[in-house]
């Protein structure tokens, strides 16, 4: 089977669209771009004109009726917080901004003057309320929502589904910055996905590669979106308990799940949860690959052993 692929950029990162029917590539790509653009306009915290930014204008308690897409993104973020006991929390907005990630990452200076950061838990996801029937949202005073942890993965899932629907058959893979979602009929042997620290890495002959037939794969890492302030390394995954970049033993975690969103939630939560993450993932039946700060790998939940790589 011949696969066809489009490679571009979106949401400040890479975008890959791969289809099993080459004639459907343009249709699939257009569908993916439409979804990604809609997510950006709804959820970006780097655009003053995004729906989320406009919702959060002001210092006091904010409230309003949001679009179906922003409601879904908020629901996804709040579900992530609930399922991870707050390890993945959308109220990290102020904390990640204070750590220096206040603009699109491409514009964040790689180095800068020292920062003074205090250990302070984030406000907590229960201070954001969504009423699904009316799509009404209430955000308490002092709470800054950042949907970055889950919105990109949600975009991958929605984009893959939209592309499949537009293609009227076949199979499609969508990757947004390494958050991979597949839909439809997979190619023979499944979708082969190489796992790396950095989604920008080139595919290599000896790179660890897995195959999936449905769902998604996501990788969270502290090694890519990094910057220095006063010589101290910082990254974008905030531990809600401290309001500071997570300081656990894992630098990169990849997870396979029934959706890209769920894979992303688990991978990000694992970085935050630290030492107990491996047993948590294993207990949840989630195939996962964890890389510690020294590069040592732990595989749990049925993740294929590297020695079993097919040639």
């Amino acid at each position, binding site marked *: 089977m011949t696969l066809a692929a489009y490679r571009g950029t979106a949401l400040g990162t890479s975008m890959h669209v791969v289809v099993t029917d080459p004639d459907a590539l343009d249709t699939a790509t257009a569908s993916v771009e439409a*979804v990604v653009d809609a997510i950006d306009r709804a959820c970006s915290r780097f655009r003053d004109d995004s729906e989320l930014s406009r919702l959060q204008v002001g210092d006091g308690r904010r409230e309003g009726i949001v679009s179906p897409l922003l409601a879904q993104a908020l*629901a996804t973020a709040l579900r992530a917080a609930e399922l991870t006991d707050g390890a993945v929390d959308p109220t990290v907005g102020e904390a990640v901004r204070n750590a220096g990630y206040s603009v699109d990452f491409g514009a964040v200076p790689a180095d800068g003057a020292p920062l003074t950061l205090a250990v302070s838990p984030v406000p907590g996801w229960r201070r954001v309320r969504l009423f*699904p029937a*009316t799509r009404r949202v209430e955000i308490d005073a002092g709470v800054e929502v950042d949907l970055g942890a889950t919105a990109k993965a949600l975009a991958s899932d929605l984009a893959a589904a939209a592309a499949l629907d537009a293609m009227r058959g076949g199979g499609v893979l969508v990757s947004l*910055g390494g958050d991979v979602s597949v839909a439809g009929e997979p190619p023979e042997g499944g979708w082969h996905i190489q796992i*790396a620290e950095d989604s920008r890495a080139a595919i290599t002959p000896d790179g660890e590669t897995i195959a*999936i037939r449905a769902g998604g794969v996501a990788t969270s890492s502290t090694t890519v979106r990094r910057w220095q302030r006063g010589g101290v390394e910082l990254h974008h995954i905030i531990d809600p308990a401290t309001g500071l970049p997570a300081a656990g033993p894992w630098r990169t975690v990849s997870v396979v799940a029934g959706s890209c969103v769920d894979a992303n939630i688990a991978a990000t939560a694992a970085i935050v949860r630290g030492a107990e993450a491996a047993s948590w993932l294993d207990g949840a039946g989630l195939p996962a690959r964890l890389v510690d700060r020294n590069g040592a790998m732990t595989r749990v939940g049925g993740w294929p052993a590297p020695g079993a790589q097919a040639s």
Partner: protein
Amino acid sequence: MPASKRRITAAERDRALRLRRTLTMAFGVAGAAAVAALAVAAADTHVGASTSRVATSTTASSTGTTAKSTTPSTSSSGTGSSSLSTGSASTGRSSSASTVSGGS
């Protein structure tokens, strides 16, 4: 003296929805209607579980892709499930790799 009103809990909502499904299977639409009020109340209980059905069915119009639901066919995203959905992986071939999953 009338009982004081309170918002239903997530557990009560889940029980109501399970009951509605059971009644739907047993008695059809009429059975489901008997607990419709509970389901409506459940929709406003809190976030997550009951959220996505509403949001998902209307997402497509906001993205301009299709009138059909855009819920991923194999996904629990936005379905409000109370646990993370599991997946499976097998060994792959680097020569067949379509993309890379890594940090970004």
